[in-house]
């Protein structure tokens, strides 16, 4: 039998097999920390995953006391993230609309596009420092949940611009042209036709952006400061945030604080994962609709 059809040198086969094994192993290696993190968080977080945790703050809890909760931090996070979304979504969406519908590759559009990319790379702590320098030290405002929301929106805006831009570009040009050809003004074409077509995609992008900033710690510590008490107003005085709570408790030496840190982490992961999952579900649910 002719061996040209059967023979591939052992060295080549071995390399091929080695590559296959290594590539699979790398994936396994990458999943280990994910599994480990999730396992630790669930295992250690359940200890304090109780009613106390969700209904109490850390006020009057001594350094070695058990009990205490993250109610003040959860409340703060919800307010800060909601405010950040409220500030950044309109600006980001309008910017994306400008880039896709009005910019036409002009100099302004290109520089905006460039700086949106640059902004995506800003370390979150620098966003916090900026609000500290501008809002707190520059304008003399106090540390507050709102200041935190400002810092978070700096991080959120470029992410939303990018994803919304991508979604708007997916809207087929024929739709715009057909509407414009009927004499519908451009802004109504955008509002009535382009935005609804891209809507679910934009919502997905926004939810992923919210999930991202909800877990941010660094910008908060420089802008909302720390407090152990409940502060219902995001506009006056120091507030707490859930990521900040985790960081704060994790830095304390006593085991009861570490327990609270784990439960805070579990809560935070649940919030972030739910947002992520929701975003994926919307994206998945939308897919059959477009192909229909």
């Amino acid at each position, binding site marked *: 039998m002719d061996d040209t059809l059967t023979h591939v040198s052992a060295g080549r*086969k071995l390399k091929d097999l*080695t*590559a*296959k094994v290594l*590539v*699979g*192993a*790398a*994936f396994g290696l990458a999943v280990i920390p994910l599994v480990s993190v999730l396992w*630790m968080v669930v295992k*250690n977080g359940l200890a304090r995953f109780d009613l106390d945790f969700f209904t109490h703050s850390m006020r009057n809890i001594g350094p070695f006391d058990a009990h205490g909760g993250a109610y003040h931090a959860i409340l703060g996070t919800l307010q800060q993230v909601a405010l950040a979304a409220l500030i950044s979504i*309109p*600006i*980001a969406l*309008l*910017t994306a609309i*400008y880039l896709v519908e*009005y*910019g036409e590759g002009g100099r302004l559009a290109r*520089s*905006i596009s*460039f700086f949106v*990319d*640059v*902004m*995506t*790379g*800003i*370390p*979150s*702590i*620098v966003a916090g*420092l900026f609000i*500290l*320098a*501008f809002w707190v*030290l*520059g304008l003399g405002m106090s540390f507050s949940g709102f200041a935190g929301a400002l810092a978070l929106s700096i991080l959120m*805006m470029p992410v939303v611009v990018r994803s919304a831009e991508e979604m708007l570009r997916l809207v087929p040009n024929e739709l715009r042209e057909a*509407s414009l050809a*009927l004499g*519908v*003004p*451009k*802004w*109504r074409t955008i509002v*009535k036709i382009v935005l609804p*077509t891209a809507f679910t995609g934009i919502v997905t992008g926004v939810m992923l952006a919210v999930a991202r900033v909800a*877990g941010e*710690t*660094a910008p908060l*510590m420089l802008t909302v400061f*720390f407090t152990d008490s409940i502060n219902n107003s995001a506009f006056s005085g120091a507030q707490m945030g859930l*990521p900040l709570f985790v*960081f704060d408790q*994790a830095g304390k030496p006593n085991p009861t604080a570490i327990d609270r840190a*784990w439960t805070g982490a579990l809560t935070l992961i649940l919030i*972030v*994962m739910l947002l*992520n999952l929701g975003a994926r579900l919307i994206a998945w649910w939308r897919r059959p609709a477009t192909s229909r």
Partner: protein
Amino acid sequence: MTTSQTETLDHGPAGGDLPEGKDASRTGRIGDRVFRLASSGSGVLLLAIMAAIAVFLVIQALPALRANTAPFLTEKIWNPNAVPPRFGIAALAFGTVVSSLIALVIATPVAVAVALFISHYAPRRLAATLGYVVDLLAAVPSVVYGLWGAVFLVPLIMDPASWLNRNLAFLPIFNGQPVSSGKSIFTASVVLAIMILPIIAAISREVFLQVPKANEEAALALGATRWEMVRMAVLPFGRPGVISASMLGLGRALGETIAVALIVSASFEIDWNVMMPGGNSIAANIANTFQEAGATGRGALIASGLVLFVITLVVNMAARAVIARRKEYARAGA
């Protein structure tokens, strides 16, 4: 698509303005102007924010820098709240760059392999799910990684770190000594590597999936094994994408705050022995010392943040430049 087109077109005129003639076209024109102004205004606002970040960081950093009695760029000690204030960025910048580079060295090969696994090795049906699993790694908040690193990894890493330190002592970053605590730059690097891995993997995977099928088939039809096909067609095509992905990952690692702050034991030394307890970074130092900082202290921290801003800006812009070049190249090739 045709049905949705006719639908929307039917709604347009019925929606109101059109049949009213001249008035309608006037409100249309005014509406257009307002809308255009609002959207371009938002874009300009973004540019203004970027400029404001640079300007305000400089303004608030200057008084502290003027009061500083040490050369800011070369001083290692961080003592801005003392009288007179003495502080410098050298040790912090060193820790930032070294920890991020080690993270990059650990993460890049694994991330590229993970990307290849998803794009070219895993069964097609599983690929999307596996990609989602990797994305989940990116969704975990950094404070959770920090907590995990501080509680779980710091004690766990001592034995492997001691082993590496003994057996790789010929490298300048290892000194042959057993490790007395895991609160080191190396541990921070491992956690940073885990955090940037999904970023590098996700972008690399995208690039690998864009490799023209024709190039892959050309290699296979020549009698290449799968690995040889990857080396002939996939990796050369994906190289610029992988480079820029790693640089974006590097940018992320440089700016990471909380995970590093929870792990390192905050020293102000330039110590090449990354396995030894100690280490620090610009961002971690801000997180650790902000609460106790006075006026000069805050200014000093802002000055350090400005340095971090500039470093990450340079890295990110370089990464974007690589991507842009690749786009041109791809267009020329097509």
